[in-house]
């Protein structure tokens, strides 16, 4: 790393022997983990090595790399007041304790994505996924989250779209806006598809998820009318009812009511669309807010439980480190070879563009000290990556044969357990029909073959781990449905919240043409725009459910590309800002992840549009099926009827056009950003930054989780000063609970 002599901002510091010893040990733990992962071939290894490799790497990256970025690249300034301090209104702008904000931010960024992507990527073995989840988060994902958070904090919490418009230009800004909207539609469709696949033909699942609606309504009324604001007590009540709903799901599934709750995927799509529309036009207090409390409680609780479960049970990885699908690209879960599709598929666990929306919205308005962006931005994303590692573990402790039977499209597996067993054998793995039947019976499901989308696989792995710790095999079914509930809950919350955000964007844009549409209280406008958004994702959901090639197989890559495209926009904004603010020498910090991300996204888009392989290229697919139709064939590939063949032709066209559109958008944003950067490099003085003014901060607060000795002294001094002049100032807020 270049060390310019002029840099005097860095205080001279002695490094204690103790710290050297500790960090050497942490480094050794991580290195041993990676060593075992790299050297073991053919034998089964313990998940402990995966944890060691990941946690050791996170610790080193947080201690050294994030600190370097915060101090040298961003030059966070503990003397500069944040918008939370300057604009404190006690409501959306208020300085929040760093530990609380870490929780808020983590709860906002962690969702179903990191649980789904890594499970699908496990078809290439656990090693490619693990390497990218760890390396990707350290060098790209966590960097993006932290840098966006920092720049947005410096701009009073401006959104990514606003920053793109202000700092790059109206053209790049508009492209970013279109990208966000298109991505939102695909995201909602894919998440809804995950839930539809998990709940199809599962009376237990459908009943317990359906029960979350009355539970949420009850909580909403409680909070609105009975005891306003008592969130904790009502959430505890809600979680208890939720557990009851999971338990009673079994009774329903075993009773004569089972029939009523056994729904085919196509009926579930209609339910989902109706739910999505109604939920998004109902007042927030009724459904969204209480459901959000529930899902946050469940999310944090389950993640903590899962981490404990993995550590206690220490399961063994049964999947190969690298399967042949990594190179052949012919895997049944998603098509395409390791580069670029592992990176596209894992998405959220390593680098997620969507996080940039949270890092530039709610969180920056609550950051107490600039120095804390490291803990909140970088730290939360490391935690999310750890969740992704646990998802890899859940998928890879299953018998590989079972994994492929659950995750392959129905068209590949055929109608019976015998045909599924044969199909799995053709992939080079084995599972006999009786084991498949038993696995379904263990978790209280009629069948678990071709339950694509990742959620059921994750739930199987989780039930394996939890039942090893609590309750034994008899509890497997409960834990399986617990896991499904946990994923469904926050996917449904996202569907509701995402539809609202999409509607808001649409209202804002269409409002320029017809004024009243902008008004959020004008219900015809609200209903119309809600219907457009729901119609958008509903279309892709419908398509996904009916696609003979498998909806996840077709749509998940699109979702991944869309997400990584948004990350490219965020990283482009960050890099532009670094260059415009005269930090060209540090531009590589976000510039290299940007180049990598662009290479991955554009390669994937290119292959999806131009590949000759019918499994990968949408237009090749379209041509193959169209030719077959033209030749009068009655069936082709997995399409058994002419109708199915026509469906594939239409879907492939839509998906292909969308892939091309995404690629064009990313090129527009990049071209516009490059123009701004080149201008800033040529005339360093002219670049105009839209930073908020400098105001000196009065708050004293530690940067990291635990205050350093120096910070303790500052806190004590500030407390003393506040005590002597009798004012409370910012210090009590800063110190939080002693």
């Amino acid at each position, binding site marked *: 790393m270049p060390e310019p002599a002029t840099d005097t901002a860095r205080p001279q510091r002695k490094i204690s022997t103790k710290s050297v010893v500790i960090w050497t040990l942490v480094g050794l733990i991580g290195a041993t983990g990676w060593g075992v992962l790299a050297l073991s071939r053919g034998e089964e290894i313990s998940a402990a090595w995966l944890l060691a490799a990941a946690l050791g790497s996170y610790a080193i990256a947080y201690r050294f790399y994030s600190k370097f970025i915060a101090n040298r690249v961003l030059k966070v300034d503990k003397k500069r007041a944040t918008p939370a301090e300057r604009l404190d209104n006690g409501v959306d702008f208020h300085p929040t304790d760093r530990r609380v904000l870490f929780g808020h931010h983590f709860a906002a960024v962690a969702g179903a994505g990191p649980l789904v992507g890594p499970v699908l990527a496990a078809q290439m073995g656990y090693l490619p996924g693990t390497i990218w989840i760890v390396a990707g988060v350290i060098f790209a994902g966590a960097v993006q989250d932290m840098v966006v958070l920092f720049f947005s904090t410096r701009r009073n919490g401006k959104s990514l779209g606003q920053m793109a418009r202000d700092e790059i230009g109206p053209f790049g800004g508009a492209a970013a806006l279109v990208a966000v909207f298109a991505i939102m539609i695909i995201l909602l469709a894919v998440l809804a598809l995950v839930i539809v696949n998990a709940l199809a033909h599962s009376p237990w699942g459908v009943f317990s998820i359906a029960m979350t609606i009355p539970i949420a309504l009850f909580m909403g009324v409680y909070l609105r009318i009975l005891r306003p*604001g008592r969130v904790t007590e009502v959430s505890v009540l809600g979680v208890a009812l939720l557990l009851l709903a999971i338990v009673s799901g079994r009774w329903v599934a075993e009773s004569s009511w089972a029939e009523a709750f056994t729904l085919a995927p196509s009926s579930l799509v209609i339910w989902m669309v109706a739910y999505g529309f109604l939920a998004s036009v109902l007042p927030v207090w009724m459904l969204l807010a209480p459901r959000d409390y529930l899902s946050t409680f469940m999310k944090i609780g389950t993640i903590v439980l899962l981490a404990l479960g993995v550590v206690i049970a220490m399961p063994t990885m049964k999947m190969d480190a690298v399967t042949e699908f990594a190179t052949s690209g012919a895997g049944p879960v998603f098509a395409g070879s390791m580069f670029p599709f592992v990176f596209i598929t894992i998405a959220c666990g390593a680098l997620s563009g969507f996080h940039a929306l949270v890092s530039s919205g709610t969180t920056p308005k609550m950051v107490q000290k600039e120095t804390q962006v490291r803990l909140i931005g970088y730290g939360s994303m490391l935690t999310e990556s750890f969740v992704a590692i646990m998802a890899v573990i859940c998928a890879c402790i299953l018998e590989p044969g079972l994994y492929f039977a659950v995750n392959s499209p129905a068209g590949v597996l055929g109608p019976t357990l015998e045909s599924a067993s044969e199909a799995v054998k053709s992939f080079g793995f084995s599972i006999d029909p009786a084991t498949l039947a038993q696995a379904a019976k263990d978790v209280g499901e009629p069948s678990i073959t071709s339950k694509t989308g990742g959620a059921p696989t994750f739930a199987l792995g989780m039930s394996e781990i939890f039942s090893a710790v609590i309750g034994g095999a008899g509890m497997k079914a409960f834990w399986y449905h617990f896991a499904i509930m946990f994923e469904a809950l926050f996917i449904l919350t996202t569907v509701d919240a995402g539809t609202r955000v999409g509607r808001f964007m649409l209202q804002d844009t269409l409002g320029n043409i017809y004024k009243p549409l902008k008004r959020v209280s004008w219900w015809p406008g609200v209903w119309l725009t809600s219907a457009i958004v729901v119609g958008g994702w509903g279309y892709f959901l419908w398509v996904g459910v009916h696609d003979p090639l498998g909806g996840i197989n077709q749509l998940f890559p699109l979702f991944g590309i869309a997400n990584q495209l948004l990350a490219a926009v965020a990283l482009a904004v960050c890099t532009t800002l670094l260059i415009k603010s005269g930090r060209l020498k540090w531009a590589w910090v976000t510039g290299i992840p940007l180049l990598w991300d662009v290479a991955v996204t554009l390669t994937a888009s290119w292959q999806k549009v131009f590949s000759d392989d019918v499994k990968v290229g949408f237009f090749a697919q379209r041509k193959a099926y169209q030719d077959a139709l033209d030749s009068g064939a009655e069936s082709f590939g997995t399409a058994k009827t002419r109708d199915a063949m026509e469906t594939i032709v239409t879907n492939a066209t839509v998906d292909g056009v969308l892939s091309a559109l995404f690629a064009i958008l990313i090129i527009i944003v990049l071209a516009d950003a490059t123009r701004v950067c080149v201008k800033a490099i040529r005339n360093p003085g002219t670049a105009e930054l839209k930073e908020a003014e400098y105001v000196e901060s009065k708050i004293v607060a530690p940067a990291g989780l635990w205050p350093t000795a120096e910070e303790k002294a500052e806190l004590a001094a500030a407390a003393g000063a506040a005590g002597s002049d009798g004012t409370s100032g910012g210090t009590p807020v800063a110190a939080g609970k002693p």
Partner: protein
Amino acid sequence: MTVKSVKSAKSVGAKIWWYVRELTGETAYERYVAHVRKDHPDAPVQSRRAFERERTDRQEADPRQGFRCC
């Protein structure tokens, strides 16, 4: 159990309770009251019911507040 361990258990409990209340936003009203009292001593303070109503309704107006990720 010694007096000391009871005390430390109590303080750990209090810390967890503080964290949960902060995280769920239950303290929003207290924060608001403190804010009004400090910066606008003469202004009327909303009731908790009215405050919580306004707080959820604000999300209605701009749903990007509190948006969750994938």
